[in-house]
């Protein structure tokens, strides 16, 4: 069997995972995009700065004013503090650190054009071993990279300086790359900001997801989980026989509609349950079994209230209904107690059937008890019934249309019992020969009298039952 997983847990799982995924993806993307833009802006800045330097170096070099360039670099370093510029020859030696270039230029021009200068730098650097530098020289293209030194982060660029045609006059034509501009920009602040962006994103995620999850879970709990559980409780109540339970769901949505539907269903069940108190067990049985018709030997019981129409006219409707219900109730109770089934009520009349071996006896006993009860007890407004009984073979079956069918008894004997009932005076029990003869030895009766019945040529022998000594079977 599959394990029971509470709805709340499933919903929470879906919620938390989709929130985590959705918000996570959004935040990760945002943080990523922000950092990427920051990096991109940094790189673009550096490119632009190197471009500007390139242009100024190109023009400073032309008149051979190397010292101007050297001073420019030093000034930039000093002014910005975060920005370091240097220039290397293609062989990796820092430019202006010696007079070699001047010597080459003079040789190319075949005269002393530039005078050798006192050394401009004391701490000439070599960077030939730097891979990025080598790439810039060999591939003749700008190389951008990042570097961390301890706590600080740097963005760096190598920009190749070409031996342009206008340079070739002095510098010769045998090489393409003259040197490399190197810029190192301190981007520690930006790096910290990048890290902070990530931390902030993580913090937002850590706070937002649980918060939203709790809020949403709460919402679903109230709108979905709790009503469903409540409906379950209602169903359990009904199953336990409590028809007074009702779903109380205020919401005007599908769940609310379901609640109303359930309430209607419980009401319907309740009504049917009430009905089953009156309707015969065999009726219910056959409704269940869907019997389609059968013949059976039965004793038919027919009672009906004397002068009920006159009574109904004289009394207020509530009182009429109440009195009638009391009458039907007591008859039903006595019939059931004696093993009979109420087949139906027709206005103030009761049709009942008795089957089994002692059907005549049980029917007679029921009839006598009913008359005794109505004769003795107050509370029936003096209403009395007449009762007729007949025994014989009847047809049992579901009769009616497809929408509405009742299980009932059909046959001549039903009519005979009804005829006897009609003939009985208040408080009287009339039976036919077929009921009387099995009980002849024990029953106290008067008769036979002869009764003309519609559709029959011969008059019927009718007995009035007075008493049936001996306890119930």
């Amino acid at each position, binding site marked *: 069997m599959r394990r029971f997983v509470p709805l709340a847990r499933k919903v929470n799982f879906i919620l938390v995972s989709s929130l985590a995924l959705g918000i996570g993806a959004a935040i990760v993307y945002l943080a990523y995009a922000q950092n990427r833009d920051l990096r991109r802006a940094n790189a673009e800045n550096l490119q632009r700065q190197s471009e500007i330097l390139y242009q100024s170096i190109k023009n400073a070099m032309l008149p051979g004013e190397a010292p101007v360039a050297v001073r420019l670099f030093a000034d930039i370093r000093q002014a910005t503090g975060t920005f370091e510029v240097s220039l290397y020859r293609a062989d990796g030696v820092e430019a202006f650190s010696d007079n070699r270039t001047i010597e080459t230029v003079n040789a190319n021009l075949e005269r002393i054009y530039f005078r050798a200068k006192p050394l401009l730098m004391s701490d000439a650097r070599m960077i030939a071993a730097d891979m990025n530098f080598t790439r810039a020289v060999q591939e*003749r*293209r*700008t190389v951008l990279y990042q570097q961390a030194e301890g706590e600080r982060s740097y963005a760096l660029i190598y920009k*190749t300086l*070409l*031996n*342009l*045609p*206008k*340079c*070739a*006059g002095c510098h010769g*034509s*045998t*090489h*393409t790359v003259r040197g490399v501009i190197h810029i190192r920009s301190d981007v520690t602040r930006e790096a910290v900001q990048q890290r902070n962006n990530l931390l902030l994103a993580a913090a937002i995620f850590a706070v937002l997801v649980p918060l939203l999850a709790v809020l949403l879970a709460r919402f679903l709990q109230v709108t979905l989980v709790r009503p469903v559980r409540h409906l379950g409780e209602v169903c359990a109540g009904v199953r336990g026989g409590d028809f007074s339970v009702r779903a109380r769901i205020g919401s005007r949505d599908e769940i609310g509609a379901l609640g109303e539907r359930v309430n209607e269903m419980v009401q319907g069940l309740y009504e049917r349950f009430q009905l089953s108190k009156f309707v015969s067990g065999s009726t219910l049985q056959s409704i269940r079994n869907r019997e389609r018709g059968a013949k059976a030997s039965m004793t038919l019981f027919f009672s009906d209230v004397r002068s009920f129409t006159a009574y109904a006219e004289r009394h207020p409707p509530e009182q009429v209904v109440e009195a009638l219900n009391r009458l039907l109730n007591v008859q039903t109770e006595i019939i059931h107690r004696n093993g009979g089934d109420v087949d139906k009520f027709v206005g103030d009349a009761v049709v009942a059937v008795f089957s089994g071996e002692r059907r005549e006896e049980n029917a007679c006993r029921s009839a006598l008890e009913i008359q005794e009860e109505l004769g003795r007890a107050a509370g029936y407004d003096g209403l009395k019934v007449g009762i007729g009984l007949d025994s014989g073979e009847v047809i049992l079956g579901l009769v009616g249309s497809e929408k509405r069918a009742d299980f009932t008894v059909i046959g001549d004997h039903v009519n005979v019992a009804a005829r006897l009932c009609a003939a009985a005076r208040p408080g009287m029990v009339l039976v036919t020969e077929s009921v009387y003869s099995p009980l002849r030895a024990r029953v106290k009766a008067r008769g036979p009298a002869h009764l003309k019945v519609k559709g029959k040529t011969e008059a019927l022998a009718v007995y009035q039952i007075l008493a049936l000594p001996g306890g119930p079977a």
Partner: protein
Amino acid sequence: MNPRRASALLPHVALAAVALLALSCARPAPRALVPADYASWERPTERDLDYPVPGHEDHRRRIYLNQSGEDVRITERQGRVVHEYPEGTVIVKEVYAGLQFRQGEAPFQLTVMIKKPKDPLARGGWLWVVRDMASGQETVIDYEFCFDCHANANEPHPYGDKNPRGEFRDYVFLPYRK
């Protein structure tokens, strides 16, 4: 489809999607930008260039210009002479190993300018292409290198007629003249 089988299929589908994505992002197959018959074209200068120049260094060079390039438009704009090569112009420069001419020698490299102003890789309206003859591989140089130097063709320089009046030569050092 049974959902379990579908979920088993999912990783494969994802993998395939990633692979497709990777493929589509990968570099496109090398394209043949340089026509094979360039040797039959006009030559802007009959001379073999046997002096070293920066950018092409100490290699002997020979330049060819295709038919479209012969229709170069030379106009004057705001007092400056302006050369404009029509779209489709191809200038091929053969680069030979040594400076000395040797019988039957083939170039080891072509450096090529292709006028294609709308190409996103173009700089100054030209595609700058290097073709390695041994492998046949063509590389488009979309960064500063070629373009930066060739910008000097538009001001006085030491080559050819030296462009003494600083005409706009459309980045070509040795312009074609009918």
